[in-house]
Structures are given as C-alpha cells and as structure tokens.
C-alpha cells in the first residue's frame, strides 16, 4: 500500500512542483498591480498584515485591460490563425512523409526514423538562425533562384508571415510525422488489398481505408503541432516581421520590454485557459485510441 502510494506520489509531486506552484505564482502576479520596484509588482505577502489584507489588494484589473485593448484579442486571434494554418501545412507535408516511411522496406525504416529525429540533436535556435540565412534577401534560396534564372529580383521572404510558416512547418514536422507513422505502420496491408479486391481503385482505397484508419494519428499529430505553435515565440520573433502578431511575442514584450509583469501574467493565464480546450480534446483522442486497441 505504502509502496503504491509512493509510486503515484512521484508524478504528482513533479506536477505540483513544476507546474502547479509556478502557475499559482503567475496567477498571483496577474492579479497584482504594476509598480516601479524589484520585482515590478505589488502587493507582496507580509506576515505582519496577514493573509486577508494581502488578498484584498488583488483584483482582476489586468484581465479587464486585456479585454479593453484590442491588441490582445487580435494577437490571440492572429496566433490562432497562424497555428491553424501552419498545422494544416505541417499535415500536408508530414502525411506523405509518414506514409512513405511506413511503406518503405522494413530495413530502411529505422534509418528514416533517425533522419526525422536527427534535427533535434542540434539547438532549436541554431536551426531557426539557419533559416534566416536561407530566407534573407541575400540568402541561399534567393541566390539559388537568381542563379537558375527563375527570378531576377530577390524575393522578400524573411520577416514576413511566410517565413514564420516555413519555420513552424520545419520545426514541428517531426511531431506530425511520428504519430501518423505509428498509425500507418500498424495498418494491415491486407486491408488495402481487401478494399481493392472489393472494387476500390488505389486512390479510393486510400480515402476509404488508409485515411480513416490513420485518423487517430492525424488528430494526435495536429494537436501536438497546434498546441505549442499557439504560444510560439522564438519563430515569429526571429523570422517574422513587425506585422507578425502572435500572442507569445506580445507576452515576451510585456515582460521584458514593457516590464509590465502583471499584464504579461494575465496574458499567460488566458493563453493557458485557451490551451486547455485542445489539450482535453487531445487527451480524449488518445484515450479513444487506446480503447480501440484493446
């Protein structure tokens, strides 16, 4: 009994220390007021005045501010749009790759899997900087296109939304490929043959059998991309332009440029609440998949 309790306690303690406690701190800051001090917010808990005096100074002012200034909800909406569109593009690129991997000869699969995971071995920042080198006006892409004669003027890609999409698709591709690959690899080849035997062309067998049977992989992959992209900060700030509006970037600016910790914390709390919806949906998808496998 004790053993079991200890075993369960470990992940809960982990969650408590690394998620719940920081979250409560952020929540507390979001309910505070900005102040020119270190740290730049008030009130602070004081044993002398007691807990009630402390709590009475907290308010929802920052959250009302978020609703009043249209920068924030525009940033949320823009992030949502960028997340949806880039998830779609990642799916478009990732599905054929996962499909090709699952159909590759058995002895190649481990190597292909390795190639998908390999970029994780280098720093994420370095890879994004590499894209700056590729996409800039004097970058490799423009040089190559001008050398081949496809274009005469360099294309402006860096510091636009297009560069953000490219960066996101590139960075999050493995998260899309791996769950889809896992679903497709389990797919029994004879199901496709059965569909063809019953009158399906190759294409309709793909639509009627392969796609529905890899549905859980597709859903899992989409959530794994969508959830982190919604709060993405590095890619839009390095590859995006001044008009690229994403909530992660706003959050960063509130914290470090504006030094308005309470508003920044309020932005973070709302973002977390927004993310709970897709996370719950993702969990349900995973659970359904596990039930189907039993």
């Amino acid at each position, binding site marked *: 009994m004790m053993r079991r309790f200890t075993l369960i306690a470990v992940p809960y303690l982990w969650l408590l220390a690394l998620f719940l406690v920081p979250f409560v701190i952020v929540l507390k800051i979001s309910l505070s007021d900005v102040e020119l001090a270190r740290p730049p917010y008030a009130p602070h808990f004081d044993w002398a005045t007691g807990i009630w005096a402390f709590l009475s100074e907290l308010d929802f002012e920052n959250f009302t501010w978020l609703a009043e200034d249209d920068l924030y909800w525009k940033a949320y909406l823009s992030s949502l749009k960028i997340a949806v569109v880039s998830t779609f593009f990642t799916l478009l690129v990732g599905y054929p790759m996962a499909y090709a991997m699952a159909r590759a000869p058995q002895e190649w699969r481990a190597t292909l899997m390795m190639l998908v995971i390999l970029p994780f071995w280098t720093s994420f920042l370095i890879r994004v900087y590499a894209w700056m080198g590729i996409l800039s006006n004097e970058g490799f892409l423009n040089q190559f296109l001008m050398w081949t004669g496809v274009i005469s003027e360099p294309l402006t890609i860096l510091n636009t939304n297009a560069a953000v999409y490219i960066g996101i698709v590139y960075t999050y591709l493995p998260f899309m490929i791996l769950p889809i690959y896992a679903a497709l690899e389990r797919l029994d080849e004879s199901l496709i043959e059965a569909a063809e*035997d*019953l*009158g*399906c062309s190759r294409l309709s067998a793909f639509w009627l059998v392969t796609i*529905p*049977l890899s549905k859980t992989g597709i859903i899992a992959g989409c959530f794994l991309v969508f959830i982190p992209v919604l709060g993405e900060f590095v890619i839009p700030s390095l590859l995006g332009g001044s008009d690229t509006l994403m909530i992660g970037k706003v959050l960063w600016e509130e914290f470090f440029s504006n030094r308005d910790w309470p508003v920044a914390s309020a932005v973070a709390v709302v973002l977390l609440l927004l993310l709970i919806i897709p996370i719950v949906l993702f969990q349900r998808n995973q659970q359904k998949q596990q039930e189907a496998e039993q």
Partner: protein
Amino acid sequence: MLRPALCLFAPKPLIARGPSLAPVRTCGGRSLTIPVFEPWNDPEAKPLIQFQNVTKRFGDFTAIDDLTIGIYEKEFFALLGPSGCGKTTMMRMLAGFETPTEGSIYLAGQDMAPVPPNKRATNMMFQSYALFPHLSIWENIAFGLKREKMPKHDINDRVEEMLRLTRLEKFANRKPHQISGGQRQRVALARSLAKHPKLLLLDEPLGALDKKLRQDTQFELMDIQEKTGTTFVIVTHDQEEAMTVASRVAVMDHGKIIQVATPDRIYETPNSVYVADFIGEVNIIDGTATPNGPDSYSVAWKDGQAPLNVQSPADFSEGQTCHLAIRPEKVTINAEKPEGVDNLVQGKILDIAYLGNISTYHVELPSGAVIKAQSANTRRISRRAFTWEDTVWLSWTATAGVLLAE
C-alpha cells in the same frame, strides 16, 4: 454424424466425406439419384479458370514452376501443400495481387493479365479476414456493393440476404472487434460473396478457428458453396480440411502440382510417395518389382522376408525399384496366424498410439522394418487381445496398397 446446434442451415443431414467414404457429395439416402459432378472428366467442358504454363519468380526464388491446370465452374477446388509450396502465390495471382512472370491465366476464356484486382470477377476471403475495423459488420458487407454504385435499396436487400445466409442479423451494427472469431470469419465470407463473384478465393479461411468450430464451419462452407453455386478455390495446409470440403484436391510442392484428383483418389491412389506421405498416414515399403501377371507383381524387399504380392495398375519392368504405399487401416492385425491371406508378416508390437476410437500399432518385423497397422477399438481396452511386446501377425490383400515408382 450429428449436426451441431450451431449449424442452422438446411436440415438435410450431411455425411462427413472422410477419406474412406463415398467420393460424391451425398445427401442422406438420396445419393444415388444425384448426378456425378465430374466436369474434369468431360472433354466438352471448358474450365472456368485456366493456368497456362504459369511461372512466377520472386528474384531467384521460383514460387510457381511452369504450371498448367484447369478449374471448372461450381468446383470446390483445394490447393494443398506445405508452407512455401506456392499455393498462396497461385491464389494471389488469381486475385490479381501478383502477375505471372511467364504464361497466362484465363478466367472464363479472358486473359487476366491486364485486369487489375478491382476489376476482376473474383473475390477473396483473407486469412486474417481483413475486416475494416472502422466499419460496422453491415458496412463491411456493403463495402463492395457500394463501389459498384448499386442502388441503395438493392444494397440493403443484398446485405440483409448475406446476413441471413451467414446468420449474422443480430450483429449487423457491431464493429469487427466486438464479435467472436467465428463470427468474424462469417462476416469475411459474407463480404466476399456479396458481389456474386464468379470465383471465390479462400486463403486458409479456417486457420484461426479452434478445431471444433473449424469442422462445423467446413460444412457451412460446403453448404454455402452448394447454395450459391459459386466456384470456390481454397488454400489450406490442413489435409483433413481439403479432403472434407473439396471436389478436387491439388497437392503442391515447390511450385508444382504433384497430383490433382478427387479426395478419395488422392488418398487411395496417390501418384507418388510425396502425395501418399503428405495425405494421412502411410507405410512405405521399398523393394524391387517382378511382374507375374497383368498388373500383378511380386515385390522383393527386406532380406529374409517373403516377397509381397501386389496388384496395382502400374508399369514396372523386371527388377525395377518400387515403393509400396499401404495405409495403416488396410493392414489387419491378429494375435493368431490368419489363413488364406495374400501377404502375411510376423512381428512384435513396438508402440501403440491410442486415439480412443482407433489404435495405431507400430509393429517391428525381425528385419527391423516397422509397419503401422490401424484397427478400430471395438472392444474395451482391457479386453484387447494383444499389447506391447506381443508377437502379432499382420496381413493385407494384394490390392490394398499402391505401387509407386517415385
């Protein structure tokens, strides 16, 4: 044989066509009035499927080796052989999943080479059943019909009919993982029959079922085959299954068909030691033949044993090496020396395999050869006249065995 309660089909009693029973499918008491179904003996009959010098190679490996055979309409044709003998390749070529490296396959006179699997009038029942896990039983059966763009109410009627035929009405709305293995097997059958195929291919259809259910299902398959009049080709490595269901059995080895014949002929008159050995139990006695009359031979074998008298339609010259194949149940075992028999040997019981209804006795002759004899346990085991180490007499008639060259 009592039909188990599971089989709710036509109440006519089916007789198990074991190896030693009648060659034609008989229906209790009416067997004499049923015309013999033997299109392969009719020179006028055109085969539904014709393999013409078909060879299939995978790299260096020859799966099918210059094979020519015809399969006739309404036949229940069994491909029997050990794994890797090419039987599954043959079936996959019929379905269109493989194409012959050389030669051609004709279905109803049409060369099948350019026809893709989805355009063939054949349907296949897969070994794994290959039921679509995301579709209900009803949708699984309707799958092929919907691809034909059949009107909706016709699909309904046809699916209902198939559900009735396979007694799955109650499970129409379930998903494949919610039903038992036997039911899944029937869904697979219903789905493959729904499109009225000219030819139904069954790839080890009963492999996943336990023995009892397998036997019941064999009779169901035969019943459905008779009812629908569809030509069935079944692949199996289970010789009993092939013998039970098939009108003809093809025994295969290394990409070649060694013998094609009705189950009783395969059993009674195998054309080679391989076939004799593959089907059932057999004693193979090696010797040299000396003709002593029309189709009659004296076979000299072990030193110190009297030559054997064999009557077998074969052509052997003086002193030619031969193999006498004789089934254990055709060897009579006696405690006393019997009189007036064609062949008689004496030996000691080495081993007894007791199977309940029958026992197989392994009898060692003074020369060291071991001959198996089988007899029905008509007496209680305690009243058996002989047991281990007893000296017994084995006898058989001259016509009991077959003389084989190879």
